[in-house]
């Protein structure tokens, strides 16, 4: 759907790597050009008309994000460079002060590096204990496994809402309820879910939420950290400098600004934030239900057709999101991706930044297809046709 809105699609490219990043609709690019061409000024700094407009447009996006995720107030929304920065701020800016040695943090082996490595840093620094909640045979996370992993020492559950590998959708409503009952911080990495489905931070009792604009039709280099107000207040800024202080004196007296500004040191990515705002408008205009259904249809269509190709193995046939992991028998994933690239079909090969999943999957590398709203059945047909022709793969790859 909406293909005419995406210039990248004029290039006769079949783009199935939306889990990595998505194409941007013209309106997003136009909104950023509009900022650069018509009201280019810094935020929070000037007393003139165009600077004032920057403030208004920039803060409008905070409202949009607040509405998108159902936060209580726009103060709870911090603009970051992306999910990775947001997660680092949560772990190193908040948890480093809220936790103590021996406290347990539950994650899974299918988390993205950005939701693993900050915790490992904290483990090294202060002796928190990272535990992996077991996954089921489909490599999915079940409520029961979460429940059974909780001990009296569990202080944090930090998981992706949707994983970027298996694409399983985690039962965050039930897990959030559990966290509330047991007084556990609930950190949700929404990088792969916000682009495709509704995430409500209050309904799901989310303590902190992280996501990136570029996976949801927005620009690169911008994202969001959400924190419940009383928690966000306690986040210690990792970066300090301009834009986040009320005053500082030569006798070293300093007062920082209130949230969210306290956590946005330096000139922000104004164009990026404005582009993200436009991307949110665009997504909301279409509606999550339509997007979800479209991706489900494409996935079902692909799985049905690929069944007939005997040498293609699917690793996650049951997962509910628009992500498919596969390999061609006896072919290294990267060679498969190179082969498909010959037909201008973009898929991702590798371990998808979830290197620990190797333990579970028993296979290191796979190819990943991740659908989005502008993909079509015709594109799936093209992929199927290429896969059917894979007997001559080495004629093309070599």
């Amino acid at each position, binding site marked *: 759907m909406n293909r005419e809105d995406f210039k990248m699609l004029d290039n006769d490219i079949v783009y199935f790597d939306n889990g990595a990043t998505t194409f941007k609709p013209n309106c997003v690019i136009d909104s950023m050009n509009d900022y650069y061409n018509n009201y280019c000024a810094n935020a929070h700094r000037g007393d003139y008309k165009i600077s004032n407009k920057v403030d208004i447009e920039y803060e409008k996006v905070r409202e949009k994000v607040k509405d998108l995720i159902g936060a209580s107030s726009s103060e709870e929304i911090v603009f970051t460079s992306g999910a990775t920065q947001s997660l680092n701020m949560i772990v190193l800016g908040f948890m480093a002060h809220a936790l103590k040695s021996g406290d347990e943090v539950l994650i899974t082996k299918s988390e993205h590096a950005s939701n693993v490595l900050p915790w490992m840093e904290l483990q090294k620094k202060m002796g928190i204990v990272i535990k992996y909640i077991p996954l089921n045979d489909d490599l999915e996370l079940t409520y029961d496994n979460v429940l059974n992993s909780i001990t009296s020492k569990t202080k944090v559950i930090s998981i992706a809402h949707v994983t970027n590998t298996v694409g399983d959708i985690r039962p965050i409503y039930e897990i959030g309820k559990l966290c509330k009952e047991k007084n556990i911080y609930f950190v949700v990495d929404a990088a792969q879910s916000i682009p495709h489905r509704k995430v409500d931070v209050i309904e799901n009792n989310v303590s902190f939420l992280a996501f990136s604009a570029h996976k949801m039709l927005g620009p690169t280099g911008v994202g969001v950290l959400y924190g419940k107000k009383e928690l966000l207040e306690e986040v210690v800024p990792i970066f300090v400098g301009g834009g986040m202080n009320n005053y500082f004196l030569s006798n070293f007296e300093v007062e920082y600004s209130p949230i969210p500004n306290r956590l946005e040191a330096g000139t922000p990515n104004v164009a990026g934030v404005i582009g993200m705002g436009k991307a949110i408008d665009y997504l909301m205009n279409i509606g999550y239900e339509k997007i979800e259904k479209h991706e489900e249809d494409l996935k079902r269509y692909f799985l049905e057709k690929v069944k007939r190709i005997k040498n293609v193995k699917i690793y996650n046939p049951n997962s509910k999101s628009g992500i498919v992991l596969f390999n061609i028998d006896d072919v*290294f994933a*990267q060679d498969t991706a190179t082969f498909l690239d010959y037909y201008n079909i973009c898929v991702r*090969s590798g371990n998808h930044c979830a290197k620990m999943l190797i333990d579970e999957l028993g296979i*290191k590398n796979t190819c990943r297809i991740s659908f989005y709203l502008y993909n079509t059945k015709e594109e799936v047909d093209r992929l199927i046709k290429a896969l059917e022709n894979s007997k001559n793969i*080495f*004629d093309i*790859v070599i």
Partner: protein
Amino acid sequence: MNKQLRREIILDNYQHPFHKDKEVDDSYIKVNTNNESCIDNLDIYFKVENGVILDVSFKGEACAISTSCSSILLRYLVGKNLNEVKVILDEYNKMINEEEYDQDILKDLIVYSDIYLQPNRKNCALLPVKAVLRLLDNLGEKNGN
């Protein structure tokens, strides 16, 4: 070399790589090599005595280009002394970087002479080379050079 022969050599070395997964003992030096941008990851083992590579083995997962290249290069290096190894690597690097090179020195390795046409695969054809360079570095350090 014509395209068909080139492909046959590469494919043969991919499907039947030289000394892949050959058992080695402690006397072998292990060097890991991987590509940041992609997923190839190989451990290469060298048995070196008196400045001569006596034997090799390699393990791991890598694409058709990296695997075949490891096979061809490593087979060729067995029996060579470290100076000869350096000469081969130099010529090979020249070829990959589209400079003038000596075909006679490179032998079968010239099957990758066209790899520059696929820039994203250049790193694959350099994967085992990185390992051999690391080996030379390691040995150089040991000798106090």
